[in-house]
């Protein structure tokens, strides 16, 4: 039986005709994208436009089945299109580019599609496409996978939950004090070894201390400056050893980080009141030979082997620095850098009474790797393709009377809901009334003739908007959402006389316009989010500007404290591809609690509250930042 007759059987000849004239946009030609492209072609969509930024990498070949060895380094979008030409009845249009590039993909280009399929791998692009779909009211099929988990969610703007209606996980961060002073889990030591030690020794800029004379130390007290300098310089001392290439100094490195620094920490009694005290290495443990030994990467080595390996790898990296411009980046696939991080982390773990790990395990954690599974991609892509028929009202036997009857699908683990089945497919929810994307603002497109961007002033825009929507010019705040730039508000008008061109407002800019006036009941006009589009014109004037014909509703202006808390404690029902760090290996117990801790129970008199778990914060080492694991 031919494909034609199969699809005809399922949707009927009439609907097949409709499908043949349907134009869809597929964003991403990677794991899910390859699968979706195949599915959409088999279903005989009329036009499939496919966008991808990436070129093909060797590591893609095991699951992105449209690509072959010979395609490596070729663009994904056009290669995918070439690969399917043989069995294709659809019009295929590939684009190589970033979907967030407003020049290549302006809003009106999105507007030419009937439906959008997301097969993306990052949060920023997902959010962006979601916003575009909201501006244009085009249905979006969002999807993602992570290992054996995945989800697929139809988004019908205005009718169902959008991508940002639920809170998204962001990479886990660790307080710097835990990392530097009081590690309690293997992950803490790995973060220390990778983000702190490795980067200080092999990637930091040594020339930085040259201008120390002119640097602002925040004090003029000579002793103070000396102290700060000493603390910041200790690591630079180590880096100098690395750069000297003198391998007889390697024991010095061991002594500093695994004996002296630990002894310093031990002097702060408060740290160890409720903790097991760390045990620094013994002097005789830092005497080592530098011969490289072959060890099994999948087992946990003895502490002696860890120290031995740390020394020989340091020796190796020291030599490499000379040939690599004194700069080596951590790369999980660069065995030297991986083993350096693994052994340093393990020695530190041993000191702090934390279990050591095999190099293989540490690679998973430090490389932040979640394996991509072809089968998961295929399942999710298949569901996405299938539900699109219902979204487009082409499946007669499963008609919907309203969009909330559509189903999403997610694996049990991704949702924490059901543990006795792999997939759950509840119907869609209504938009979350606190959603900053689909509920808290009114959206529209503002079209401006191309020729007046160089003459139209910000002030003109303020006046035009105020006239149209009855805004109070004195109370109007205008923000450029790309770049978070505040352009004008009650206390800031120095740019009002600048032209759009001068303040870099162009087609593709998205402005957030808020009239901050509040009536006695705390009500005000809902903020307006405007997509700036251009109209090709040579002699247009301000009169040619087109604004959305909308009535802006009155809403409660200030969010209460409870609302602020709630808006970010919304249960996470959706997982992210490639973005979540899955640290469940070691982290689960500790973090589940702090994550789920109900935010509402914290009292409002926070002002005077100070550290409860004081010891967590102790550090006498210079610190800069919360370390982010990514």
């Amino acid at each position, binding site marked *: 039986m031919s494909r034609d007759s199969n699809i005809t059987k399922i949707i009927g000849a009439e609907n097949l005709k409709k499908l043949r004239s349907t134009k869809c946009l597929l964003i991403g030609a990677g794991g899910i994208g390859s699968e979706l492209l195949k599915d959409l072609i088999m279903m005989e969509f009329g036009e499939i436009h496919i966008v991808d930024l990436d070129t093909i990498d060797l590591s893609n070949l095991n699951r992105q089945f449209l690509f072959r060895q010979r395609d490596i380094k070729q663009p994904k979008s056009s290669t995918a299109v070439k690969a399917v030409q043989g069995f294709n009845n659809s019009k295929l249009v590939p684009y190589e580019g970033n979907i967030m590039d407003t020049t290549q993909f302006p809003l009106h280009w999105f507007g030419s599609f009937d439906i959008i399929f997301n097969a993306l791998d990052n949060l920023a692009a997902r959010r962006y496409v979601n916003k575009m779909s909201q501006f244009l009211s085009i249905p979006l099929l969002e999807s993602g996978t992570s290992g054996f988990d995945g989800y697929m969610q139809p988004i019908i703007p205005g009718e169902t939950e959008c991508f*940002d209606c639920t809170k998204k996980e*962001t990479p886990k*961060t660790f*307080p*710097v004090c*835990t990392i530097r002073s009081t590690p309690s889990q293997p992950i803490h030591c790995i973060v220390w070894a990778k983000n702190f030690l490795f980067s200080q020794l092999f990637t930091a800029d040594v020339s930085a201390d040259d201008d120390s004379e002119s640097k*602002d*130390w*925040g*004090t003029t007290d000579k002793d*103070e400056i000396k*102290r700060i300098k000493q603390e910041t310089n200790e690591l630079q001392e180590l880096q100098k050893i690395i750069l000297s290439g003198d391998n007889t100094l390697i024991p010095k490195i061991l002594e500093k980080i695994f004996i002296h620094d630990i002894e310093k920490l031990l002097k*702060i009694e*408060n740290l160890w009141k409720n903790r097991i005290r760390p045990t620094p290495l013994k002097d005789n443990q830092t005497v080592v030979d530098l011969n490289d030994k072959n060890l099994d990467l999948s087992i946990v080595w003895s502490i002696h082997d860890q120290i031995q390996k740390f020394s020989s790898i340091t020796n190796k990296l020291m030599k490499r620095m000379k040939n690599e411009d004194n700069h080596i980046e951590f790369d999980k696939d660069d065995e030297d850098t991986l083993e350096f991080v693994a052994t340093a982390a393990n020695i530190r773990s041993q000191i702090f009474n934390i279990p050591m790990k095999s190099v293989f395990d540490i690679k998973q954690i430090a490389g932040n790797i979640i394996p991509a599974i072809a089968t998961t991609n295929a399942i999710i892509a298949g569901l996405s393709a299938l539900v699109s028929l219902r979204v487009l009202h082409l499946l007669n036997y499963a008609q919907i009377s309203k969009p909330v009857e559509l189903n999403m699908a997610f694996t049990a683990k991704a949702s924490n809901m059901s543990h006795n089945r792999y997939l759950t497919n509840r119907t869609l929810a209504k938009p979350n009334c606190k959603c*900053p994307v689909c509920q808290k*603002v009114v959206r529209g497109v503002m079209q401006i003739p191309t020729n007046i961007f160089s003459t139209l002033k910000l002030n003109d825009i303020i006046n035009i908007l105020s006239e149209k929507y009855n805004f109070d010019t004195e109370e109007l*705040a205008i*923000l*450029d*959402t790309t770049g*978070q*730039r*505040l*352009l004008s*508000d009650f206390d*800031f008008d*120095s*740019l009002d006389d*600048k032209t759009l061109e001068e303040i870099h407002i162009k087609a593709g800019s998205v402005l*957030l316009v*808020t009239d901050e006036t509040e009536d006695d009941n705390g009500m005000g006009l809902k903020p307006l989010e405007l997509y700036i589009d251009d109209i090709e014109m040579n002699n247009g004037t301000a009169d040619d500007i087109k604004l959305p014909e909308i009535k802006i509703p009155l809403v409660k202006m*200030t*969010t209460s*404290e409870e609302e*602020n*808390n709630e*808006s*970010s*404690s919304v249960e996470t029902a959706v997982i992210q591809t490639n973005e979540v760090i899955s640290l469940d290996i070691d982290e689960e117990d500790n973090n589940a609690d702090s994550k789920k801790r109900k*935010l509402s129970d*914290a009292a409002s008199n*926070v*002002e*005077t*509250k*100070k*550290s*409860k*778990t*004081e*010891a967590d*914060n*102790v*550090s*006498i080492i*210079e*610190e*800069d*930042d*919360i370390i982010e694991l990514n």
Partner: protein
Amino acid sequence: MSSLCLQRLQEERKKWRKDHPFGFFAKPTKKADGTMNLQKWQAGIPGKEGTIWHEGVYPLTIEYPDEYPSKPPKVKLPAGFYHPNVYPSGTICLSILNEEQDWRPAITLKQICLGIQDLLDTPNPNSPAQEPAWRAFSKNKAEYERKVALQAKQYAK
């Protein structure tokens, strides 16, 4: 950065405009292109009257991460600031600024500023972030007070 972050920062500015404690100031910094950067603010915290800190207005920088308000802002005093709970880099050790401790998305700029003003005169000796101020505070009060008063003059109103 998310829409949530941006909308919230704008609200923080509005709230501060409507209501902020006397003697404090806070506003977004200017970017090189002349626009205001809502992700990076500058503030001034006056020392409390009747304390050894009262003569100074202490400059603060507040940086909001893209994940704000899920994650707290990073708040810093000048590098080398003399206080037991301030790291040599100027980062302040305060539980309401710590994601794993008492940070909640509802905490406002006003609460942060008041929290820091309060911390100035009531340091937490169990949470040392730098050696000199911590040591002096726990073992040599006279020396500590002398240094604080000196620093207050440096940041005099």
